[in-house]
């Protein structure tokens, strides 16, 4: 019951904030709405027993990425000329009905295909869905898996992070002259 309420809340928050991210004119607001979306997704993780992931999602995204984006938006001054720069009506191809018709048709087609494929999977695994409701902490298992089976990917991702850190520092560094 609690899970279902949590799922409904999380799903509603995710979808609502996502629509808000898409629809808002203000980039700063869009970033805030993205934060809501990410919290929603973290809630969704929690409803299917991915507790460690939910925590990581909140820590990394809310604590890292969104803050980083807010800094970037403020550094580039993007929030100030929000109307001119980010308004959908300012984009020529976005102003016409034809574009929306084409885009909507594409979305519908893709949605139908995706739903058709997922329906197949859903019917094939109907029984499995019920059997996996038991929730326990995944932290121990994930930690042991990362350091045994996925040790190579783990180390490579650490090198990737180090490279991203150094690369970002070098790229963003202002010119000496």
């Amino acid at each position: 019951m609690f899970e279902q309420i949590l799922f409904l809340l999380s799903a509603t928050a995710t979808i609502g904030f996502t629509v808000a991210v898409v629809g808002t004119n203000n980039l700063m607001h869009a970033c805030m709405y993205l934060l809501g979306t990410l919290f929603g997704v973290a809630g969704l993780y929690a409803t299917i027993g991915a507790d460690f992931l939910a925590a990581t999602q909140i820590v990394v995204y809310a604590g890292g990425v969104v803050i980083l984006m807010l800094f970037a938006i403020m550094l580039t001054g993007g929030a100030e000329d929000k109307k001119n720069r980010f308004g959908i009506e300012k984009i020529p191809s976005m102003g016409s009905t034809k574009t929306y018709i084409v885009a909507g048709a594409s979305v519908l087609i893709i949605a139908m295909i995706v739903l058709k494929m997922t329906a197949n999977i859903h019917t094939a695994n109907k029984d499995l869905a019920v059997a996996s409701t038991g929730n326990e902490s995944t932290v121990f298992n994930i930690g042991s898996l990362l350091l045994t089976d996925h040790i190579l990917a783990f180390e490579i991702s650490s090198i990737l992070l180090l490279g991203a850190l150094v690369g970002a520092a070098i790229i963003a560094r202002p010119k000496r002259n």
Partner: protein
Amino acid sequence: MDYSFSNVALIALLPFFAFVINAFIVKKFTKLAVTISCLAIFSSFLLACRIFKDVVFDVYSSEFYVHKYFNWIDISSATIPFKINMGIYIDNMTAIMLLMVTGVATLIHVFSTYYMHDDARFGRFFVYMSLFTSAMLGLVLSDNLLSVFIFWELMGFCSYSLIGFYYEKEGAGNASMKAFMTTRVGDVFFLVGILAIWNIVGSVSFVDIYAALSQGKFAHDIMIFGLGIPVATFAAFSIFMGTIGKSAQFPLQVWLPDAMFGPTPCSALIHAATMVAAGVYLSLRMFPLMEAGHLLTFIAYIGAITAFGAATIALVQTDIKAVLAYSTISQLGYMVLGVGVGAYNASFMHLITHAVFKACLFLAAGSVIHSLHDHHTHEHVQEMPRMGGLRKKLPFTFIAMMCCTLAISGIPFFSGFVSKDRILGDALLAALHHKVMWVPAVLGFAAAFLTAFYMFRMMFLTFFGEPRDKELYEHMHEEHLQLNSNVPLLILSIFTLGVFYSGSLTGQGFIKVFKGNYEWFGTLVEKPHVANFQDHKRQLWTMDSSVDREEFKHSRYDEKHGKTEEEAHHVHQVHLIGALMSIVIAFSGVFLSFLMYGKKSLNPAFWTGLFSGWYRGLLNKYYFDTFYIKVVIQKMLLPLNNFLAFIDMGIYDRYAIDGWENVNRWFYTVAKWFDNLVVDTVAVDGTGASVRLFNVVLRTLQSGKIQFYFIMIILVLSSYIWAIGSN
């Protein structure tokens, strides 16, 4: 002596090498070039002396000949033989001719170093002279008509160059052109004759022609314009036209007087001693053909008319070189007359003697001209009215010129008398046998009188009397004996004595030396007996010297010339009469000249006034030049020229060429249409347009706009998913 390549070919090749070397070095090393020229011709002279010594002193046979050949062109197929041989043909005549040409040329080269020394083109003169000498020696050595023709034309070219040597002078260029074009008329006939002989005999070498003559290959007729003409006559006439052109005979004599525009040594060598004599030499070589063609009467008439006509013109000339030029024509006429009356030996002897004394005369004239320098016009004086009394200042020249004048006038004991009177004696003999020959004989005697007259007129006007141009006379330098100026003259004048050529001092047997046995010239030079050439011996001309030498029968002088006692007596009688007549005639000519110009008891002006019409005619050279220019060239050749031009321009050009142009233009229109439409529009512009089209497409794809890329990615992904999902 063997006649290998190295012994004989060098005679003609040495001057040629000199020519080739000098042609390159003459501008920088003029003195060296001149030395090379002189040394080359002197070496040729020494080689010629060897041959002469071998032929005349060792072999001494009238039947002697050496014929050596090498294959020049051989393009025979299996069925058609086509082979041209070149080679040498040396007989007594060649040996004598070689000695004469090289000797005279050597002396003239030496004299030229004096005469041409101040000239700006001193070296170039020797280049031409070397080439000319080489060509002349090549002609003399030739064994066939083709190489004769080659050297003949080469000499013509040298003559052309040397006549136009002072091309700054007005008229020199025209004179050289005139000489070249006039001789060309004869040369064309000569070439036709060579082709005719080639057609009949299949070879053009002399010995083959002689053999063909003895086999009677020339007996048939050919049809020309419907007239049946014996081939022998046709060939002989064509060849004799070459002689007419080169030796300045009657219809084509106009070029030789104008040729005196050249430097005097070149006049001496080319237009007196050698080149003009080459025509007569050719006639003598082809004498059996002339005989077979029954052309001798014609030749005798041509020679006599030339001898007499030129002598009359020489009477009124005032230019010292013009007198000598007409005298040359006249003497060449004598030689041709000798050919015509069958005096083979005498004609050739006159060729040699004339070469010697006329070369000497020209050199002496050159010496006179060179010493007379007009300080007002800075030119040399050639006009006799401005001379006179030069004897005291030019003693050596005077001696040489006097000897030669005596020789040419036919005074006994001199070479001219020996040769000329043999010709006249034979002419008289021919006249007694054929009535038709009286005209040449009488003209010949008359020309002898005129010769004596005008030559002594020249002598009196030049060397005797008082100087008529005092200033000119006083500026002259006294002549001293100098190796390269008067010594050649004196050497030549020694050889004007008749004793070198005949066993008797007078040539007619009046006064004999060595009991008359020393008649080498008459013994050795005989007309070729064609029957002897039926199986003529020929050898390959190689560097190899170990060739079998032919043994020839030693000839002895035959006073009767193979005739019977009675005939020989008759001939002797006629020759005696002729000799006496010509002595009388010569002396009367000299005497008349003395009266008019020496003692001045007869006034020349009176006689010119009396015969003023004739005088004008003579001054205008019988209007030959006028006739050629006004009638032949302007009235005949120019209309022909215009007619041909009309055919060319009016018909051929307009219809054939322009018509072709119309056809081409049509094709051009079609091709242009094709070009514009297919090639240009479709192919060329189409390529560009297709490139531009792809450019638009690709540029649109690669706009650099990231969102467009993203749309493309989504589209591709969607279609991929579609493809997976719809199976």
